[in-house]
């Protein structure tokens, strides 16, 4: 089994089609919607965690791409600017999946992007603009 966190960008003509249910029924994938922003007839942006067998997972993602949906890994869209971070730890207590965490021995903050769910809670909490989400 494999797990992928991806961001889908829907062009306007696909926004009103049932795409996710196809992923579930035809490709036997488990889909967890982490975040969704859909404007009818304009565009859609979905953050998904997809779990399934490697082959079906790839087939599912190919299906999305063939439809004209842009698929990219979530990690690309979330940025931790380490040079701006002062390691104050303000973000640590609000990050639900603990993607932002601290080494208690050194008190250094680190960002594990594979754990990030792009919830955006860290953005207003960081006093140094060290976190950015590009959507």
């Amino acid at each position, binding site marked *: 089994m494999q797990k992928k966190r991806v961001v889908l960008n829907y062009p306007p003509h696909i926004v009103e089609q049932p795409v996710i249910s196809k992923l579930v029924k035809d490709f036997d994938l488990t889909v967890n919607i982490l975040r969704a922003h859909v404007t009818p007839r304009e565009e859609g942006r979905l953050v998904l965690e997809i779990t399934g067998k490697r082959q079906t997972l790839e087939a599912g993602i190919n299906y999305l791409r063939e439809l004209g949906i842009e698929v990219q890994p979530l990690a690309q869209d979330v940025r931790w600017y380490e040079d701006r971070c*002062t*390691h104050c730890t303000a973000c*640590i*207590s609000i990050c639900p999946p603990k993607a932002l965490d601290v080494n*208690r021995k050194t008190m250094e903050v680190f960002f594990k992007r594979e754990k990030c769910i792009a919830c955006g809670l860290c953005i*207003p909490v960081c*006093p140094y603009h060290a976190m950015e989400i590009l959507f």
Partner: protein
Amino acid sequence: MSKTIEEINEKIRQGKALVLTAEEIIDYVAEKGVKKATQEVDVVTTGTFGPMCSSGAYFNIGHTKPRIKLGGGKAYLNDVPVYVGLAAVDFFLGAAALPEDDPRNKIYPGKFSYGGAYVIEELVAGKDVRLTATAYGTDCYPRKTLETYISLKDMNEAVLFNIRNAYQNYNVAVNLSDRVIYTYMGVLQPRMGNATYCSAGQLSPLLNDPYYKTIGIGTRIFLGGGIGYIVGNGTQHNPDVKRTDEGVPKMPAGTLAVKGDLKMMSPRWLRGTSFTGYGVTLTVGIGVPIPILNEEILRYTLVKDEEIWTQVVDYSEAYPQFIPGSLGEVNYHQLKSGKIIIQGKEVPTSGLSSYVRAKEIAQILKGWIEAGKFFLTKPVELLPSVDSGVVFKPLKERPIRKK
């Protein structure tokens, strides 16, 4: 066994001074004992890097041709207003000042992405900022408008002058209400969803000299990456608070007023800072050296995170309404572990002051002293201590009667 500042400086000159950080001294004494350590150790360096709102800088920009008198007029650096109630070309920029067109909290919570502290950071980074000004014009200062780029090197004086920094201990903030609140202690989640604290704990300058027995007016310090001086107690200095048996305040107590040449400082140690829904502030790096004059002074520097206690305060009701009281007492060892227990509830914690950077400051200061580049000073006067009678009063309002 006691030493004088002069003797310590002589050892620094000879490159023989033993300097340890406030963290290193703990293990050193555990191994060597207090007596031996007092003989051997000359200086303990401290450090703190946290948001300190009552900071700012004054400037003299040099006279224009023809001359302009900014005093009584209006002036801005990158659209941030500066205080011009002074002579012709002097002004003061406060860290918390905001551009006049910033929406503040009209769109709640406001972002406060730019302000005085950011101007200070940019200037220190060597960048050009826009100076715009209007004046009323006089016979001796006829000019009425001014628009120019300016950088730190163009100015005569550029002096960081912070009237309240380096708080000796601080509250832990929580939110008892059922909505998110936006405070100077950060974003606080409802029903005690998190707790924030702001102190370098065992590395913090005033927690290593709790009765101010070595720190006072004229103490030379690390300030913003350069060299600065303590110019007195900071505003709201409040020495006479509840303390532990070892003298460590259990709530916010002493404060420092500091100054230093901005031209020698670095943007790594002076950072513009935004608190969502609250405002702009300056994160300042400060390091104070403590001369180990005798056993008593050494003992104070041994303070550990688990011996520094502070009060948990509700920022949804108690703080804004100025209702005294504490929800409980916790220490910095607990706070740094990531969770504390308040009234039976486990609450995750976040710091606002960087321990990593505090440690770095203590190390840098140690390096300066070891290299013979930084000498200690004997204060002209110590800060007011517990017996000084200094109290921190609330404002007693006297309503103005309409005639």
